């Protein structure tokens, strides 16, 4: 028994099966985590090797090259880049998005092991680590304080962090810029020399007086005691009163005589300020697979709790919270889904005019959507932008199948059949073609699941969801829909009058619906049939006209009005500003600039809610330090603005104002102002001009030339060179002969130097369970110039002291930069961000205007990379995909019509979809990006569906023996409503997406615009071009067919001779 018959015969089973599906779906829905994108591992693996004492170029030849050569054969490798610095080599492998990272790490490990034998002897074992999503911060808070700032570290570590650690799914919590308590013993060099004491002696005294030691057991007649010397410092002031030495005169020298003891916070190296107040940044990551939104919500709640227990001057402020953005995007998409649902139902109601029919159709939407949640649940995915976008796309299409079935059943019922029987037999007539049209959609969406690269990850889910949803809707259309029709549709009301005649009760009854909508639709039918008739009589004219229209519509493309982008940047109300001052600028000087800028920014942009500034470097290697590379001369700012609907200026304008401001400061070497999109694939939309070449000077010079040239391009902003400038270092060169005469070696001298400048670590001051470093060092005034350094006293083996200048020379020199390599060649990258132009245009401008001006010597080459390259890769993938989809759709249609010609006719509508897309993009001033290109691919499937409906019906009429033109006109008249209806459901389903202004809407708007534009134009043109082409192409064919039949069955021409 067929599925629809069983469904109609067993309504209870059918309903309960769907109820079960809905229950499972709702369960999956409630379980689904919310995230921004489908889970994806960033495909980067880093191999780090240290080789103490090697300079950058030695590192490059002895370590980096060997590692690179070994690692190039890793599977799925896309790019190999490396950095060689003094002592450290870092090789970064970028694999194809979506490759299996565990396998890749194993692979890398075996190659590293193989290469390890060729590394120099003193090299450390290479360390392999992969970047995972769980190490990315999900939210950051700034904690500011005034009076309690000094104790903030303790408050945070003892109260805030432990409490946050209770939260489910929370990962690493790190603090940046927290003030550490330190006890400094700052010694005066001259006093030291005067008393003939060395710094090490002081250090030893300080650490020797700070101990707890067990000193045996004391046994008394009855009891037994452990004895301990307890002389750890309780107060830092105790240190002052320690005696260091005796002068020959018998005078005691105390620490207070030669040094000052300061119990304070650590010397400034990393400065954190929020809105100008002292701040600490709290950086929170989540565990892999944890629900970002939930973790952030818990963190928010917990912090609100903690806030109450903290001193009143401590304020916790949000710098950014990625969940907010996710939640807002998801909310606005959910809204789009609901609006789409509403619109689709309204369209159905408008065309059918019956609420019962509308309910029957409408019910397929939630069922199909709920099945999508089951899929998401089973695939361990989440409610994210991609999955919700897919649902919006699918909504308009799920009703089509149900509409076809319902329409046929209604036709049967109107003829006076019983709804029960009509449902069975009417479904029987159409179910095959319903499945066939679904196959067309499957042919479009299944190939999407095969895309590779980053686009693959994004569209994999989309492909599956739409496929699952469409298949579900088909199943619903041939089971639940006929079942509901058999129960809900009413048989035509008739009765037999007293004369025994059949009287139609409904005849003559006309509701407002019949009077208005039906009459209007009738008029549309009429008008269309008439205009179609005219077109059929003027086929050549029509075709030429349409062709002209097509060519005209493409002019914006040739005029260069349609740019290309990788992905639209989103206005999330967050800007990252990076500023580089002259290399070697003292941190205090950097801070002055930072404060000045902060003040200017706030006056220029009164909208600013918060500026978090960090400057300087954190010497602790925390995970957070991996993401922020602040150095003495670098300032990093995060600027938070209100949500975009709460301000007038958009973020790009604001960024431009900040850039112009920064350009005015002479001390600023380079600046960057990046709009944080929060999308995958790194920060910002950049075009990277890569310059390959061995010679540093030449490539640096070329890079500088490029920078100047690119800066002159109108659309280029934030032009930056990747290579850092040479860093000025102070180098101490030891005279080995002199040193050895004094019993000193380079090693001992370097230790002594370190003790004097960086400080000698002398144990800890314990307070309340925490330990604080005690550091003995020279006073700052005695170690902040080259002459001071030369004047340092170094103890010799004989116990006397010499000045450093006697055994070593001190000079300034330039440390060579980090050596960057890509694809095993040295590289410099010049990055530029487009402003008021598109990525594609900027890349083209650079390619045509900048690159030819470079005089590249032999062995030097340039290449355009960055997001532009990814975009190009993705577009070529998309084109290939589009071609594959067109092939598949053709195959499905050809087998459906059992004709090679009919699909050709239908496919003629695809170019018109293109012209619709061009017009829509041109009118809205958008550029074509990855998401828009996806829309183009989808259009192929959606557009041909209209054609199929029409051609199928013309075929039917032809088979029923109508003359060609008559058949075409009849079909057109009869099919215009279903065609308009399916087109309107899809178009209106997309409208909420296209006009949405919610957070993150920039990303999917192009999809809506592309589909709406393409479908609108192609739908109206389909209604003319397909019938006309059909007329042109099949006139002869059918006459020939009859001729062929006559020739085949020649027996009819035989003459029967009567036997005599």
């Amino acid at each position, binding site marked *: 028994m067929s599925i629809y018959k069983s469904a109609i015969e067993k309504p209870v089973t059918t309903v309960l099966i769907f109820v079960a599906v809905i229950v499972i779906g709702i369960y999956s829905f409630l379980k689904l985590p919310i995230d921004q994108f489908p889970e994806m591992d960033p495909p980067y693996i880093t191999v780090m090797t240290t080789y103490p004492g090697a300079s950058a170029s030695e590192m490059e030849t002895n370590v980096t090259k060997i590692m690179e050569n070994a690692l190039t054969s890793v599977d799925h490798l896309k790019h190999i880049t490396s950095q060689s610095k003094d002592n450290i080599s870092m090789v970064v492998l970028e694999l194809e998005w979506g490759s299996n990272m565990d396998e890749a790490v194993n692979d890398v490990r075996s190659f590293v092991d193989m290469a390890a034998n060729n590394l120099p002897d003193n090299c450390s074992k290479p360390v392999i680590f992969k970047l995972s999503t769980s190490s990315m911060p999900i939210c950051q808070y700034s904690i500011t304080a005034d009076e309690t700032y000094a104790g903030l570290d303790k408050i945070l570590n003892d109260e805030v962090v432990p409490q946050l650690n209770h939260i489910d799914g929370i990962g690493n919590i790190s603090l940046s810029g927290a003030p550490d308590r330190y006890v400094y013993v700052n010694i005066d060099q001259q006093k030291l020399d005067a008393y003939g004491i060395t710094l090490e002696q002081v250090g030893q005294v300080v650490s020797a007086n700070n101990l707890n030691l067990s000193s045996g057991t004391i046994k008394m007649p009855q009891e037994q005691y452990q004895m301990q010397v307890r002389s750890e410092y309780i107060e830092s002031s105790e240190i002052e009163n320690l005696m260091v030495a005796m002068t020959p005169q018998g005078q005691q020298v105390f620490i207070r005589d030669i040094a000052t003891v300061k119990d304070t916070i650590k010397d400034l190296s990393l400065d954190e300020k929020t809105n100008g107040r002292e701040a600490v940044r709290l950086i929170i990551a989540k565990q892999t697979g944890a629900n970002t939104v939930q973790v952030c919500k818990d963190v928010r709640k917990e912090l609100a709790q903690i806030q109450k227990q903290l001193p009143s001057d401590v304020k916790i402020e949000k710098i950014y919270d990625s969940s907010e953005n996710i939640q807002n995007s998801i909310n606005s998409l959910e809204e789009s889904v609901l609006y789409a649902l509403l619109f689709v139902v309204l369209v159905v109601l408008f065309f059918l005019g019956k609420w019962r029919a509308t309910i029957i159709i409408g019910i397929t939407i939630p069922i199909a959507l709920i099945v999508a949640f089951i899929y998401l649940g089973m695939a361990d995915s989440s409610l994210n932008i991609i999955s919700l976008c897919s649902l919006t796309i699918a909504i308009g299409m799920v009703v089509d199948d149900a509409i076809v079935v319902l329409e046929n059943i209604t036709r*049967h019922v109107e*003829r*006076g*059949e*019983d709804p*029960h*029987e*009509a449902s*069975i*037999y009417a479904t*029987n*007539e*159409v179910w095959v073609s319903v499945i066939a049209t679904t196959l067309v959609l499957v042919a479009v969406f299944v190939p999407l699941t095969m895309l590779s690269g980053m686009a693959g990850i994004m569209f994999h889910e989309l492909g599956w969801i739409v496929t699952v949803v469409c298949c579900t809707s088909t199943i619903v259309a041939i089971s639940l829909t006929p079942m509901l029709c058999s129960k809900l549709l009413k048989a035509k009301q008739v009765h037999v009058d007293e004369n025994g005649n*059949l009287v139609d009760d409904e005849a003559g009854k006309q509701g407002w619906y019949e009077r208005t909508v039906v009459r209007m639709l009738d008029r549309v039918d009429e008008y269309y049939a008439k205009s179609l008739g005219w077109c059929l009589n003027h086929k050549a004219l029509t075709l030429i006209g349409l062709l002209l229209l097509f060519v005209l519509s493409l002019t914006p493309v040739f005029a260069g009005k349609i740019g290309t982008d990788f992905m639209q940047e989103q206005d999330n109300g967050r800007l990252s500003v990076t500023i580089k001052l002259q290399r070697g600028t003292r941190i205090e000087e950097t801070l002055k600039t930072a404060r000045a800028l902060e003040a200017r920014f706030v006056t220029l942009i009164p909208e600013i809610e918060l500026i978090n500034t960090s400057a300087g470097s954190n010497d602790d290697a925390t995970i957070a330090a991996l993401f922020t590379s602040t150095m003495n001369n670098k300032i990093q700012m995060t600027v938070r603005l209100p949500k975009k609907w709460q301000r007038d200026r958009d973020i790009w304008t604001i960024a431009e104002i900040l850039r112009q401001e920064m350009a005015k400061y002479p001390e600023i070497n380079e600046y960057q102002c990046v709009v944080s999109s929060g999308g995958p694939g790194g920060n910002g939309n950049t075009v990277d001009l890569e310059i390959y070449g061995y010679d540093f000077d030449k490539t640096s010079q070329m890079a500088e030339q490029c920078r100047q040239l690119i800066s002159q391009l109108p659309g280029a902003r934030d032009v930056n060179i990747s290579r850092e400038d040479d860093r000025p270092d102070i180098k101490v060169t030891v005279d080995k002969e002199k040193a050895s005469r004094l019993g000193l070696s380079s090693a001992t001298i370097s230790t002594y130097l370190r003790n004097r400048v960086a400080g000698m670590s002398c144990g800890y001051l314990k307070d309340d369970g925490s330990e604080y470093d005690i550091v003995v060092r020279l006073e700052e005034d005695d170690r902040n110039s080259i002459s001071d350094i030369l004047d340092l006293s170094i103890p010799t083996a004989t116990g006397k002291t010499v000045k450093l200048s006697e055994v070593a020379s001190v000079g300034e020199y330039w440390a060579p930069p980090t050596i960057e390599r890509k694809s095993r060649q040295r590289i410099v990258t010049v990055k530029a961000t487009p402003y008021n132009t598109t990525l594609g245009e900027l890349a083209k401008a650079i390619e045509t205007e900048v690159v030819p001006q470079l005089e590249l010597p032999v062995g030097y080459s340039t290449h355009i990379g960055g997001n532009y390259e990814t975009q190009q890769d993705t577009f070529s993938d998309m084109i290939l995909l589009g071609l594959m989809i067109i092939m598949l759709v053709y195959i499905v249609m050809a087998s459906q019509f059992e004709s090679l010609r009919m699909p050709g006719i239908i496919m003629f509508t695809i170019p018109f979809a293109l012209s619709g897309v061009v017009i829509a993009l041109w009118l809205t001033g958008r550029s074509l990006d990855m998401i828009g290109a996806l829309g183009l691919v989808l259009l192929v499937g959606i557009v041909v569906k209209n054609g199929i409906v029409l051609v199928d019906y013309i*075929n*039917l009429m032809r*088979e*029923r023996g109508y003359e060609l033109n008559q058949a075409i006109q009849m079909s057109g008249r009869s099919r215009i409503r279903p065609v308009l209806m399916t087109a309107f459901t899809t178009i209106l389903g997309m409208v909420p997406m296209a006009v949405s202004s919610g957070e993150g809407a920039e990303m999917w708007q192009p999809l809506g615009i592309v589909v709406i534009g393409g479908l609108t134009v192609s739908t109206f043109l389909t209604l003319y071009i397909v019938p006309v082409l059909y007329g042109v192409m099949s006139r002869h064919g059918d006459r020939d067919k009859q001729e062929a039949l006559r020739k085949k069955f020649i027996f009819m021409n035989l003459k029967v001779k009567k036997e005599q």
Partner: protein
Amino acid sequence: MIVFNQANTGRVEYMLDVLGIHGFTFFEQVQGRGTNGGEPRRGTHAWPEMNSCVITVVEDDQVPALLESIKKLDMRNEEVGVRAFVWNIEATV
């Protein structure tokens, strides 16, 4: 022999019950086309509908009543369609 659109199955069975006709042979999914009008029922793309057919052997006096009922059924809605043909049974076992 009564040939009718599938969609009339329920009505034909009801009619036979009312007339007290117990025996019949039922053929499902039969094709045909009418001589005087009557859409073809071929189960094809062009003519997707199908007929069913009942052969019932009745006494001669039951024939007029049956034919009249069938005529009524046809009048109920002509588009769906029902036809009946009567001929003699020479012998049975």
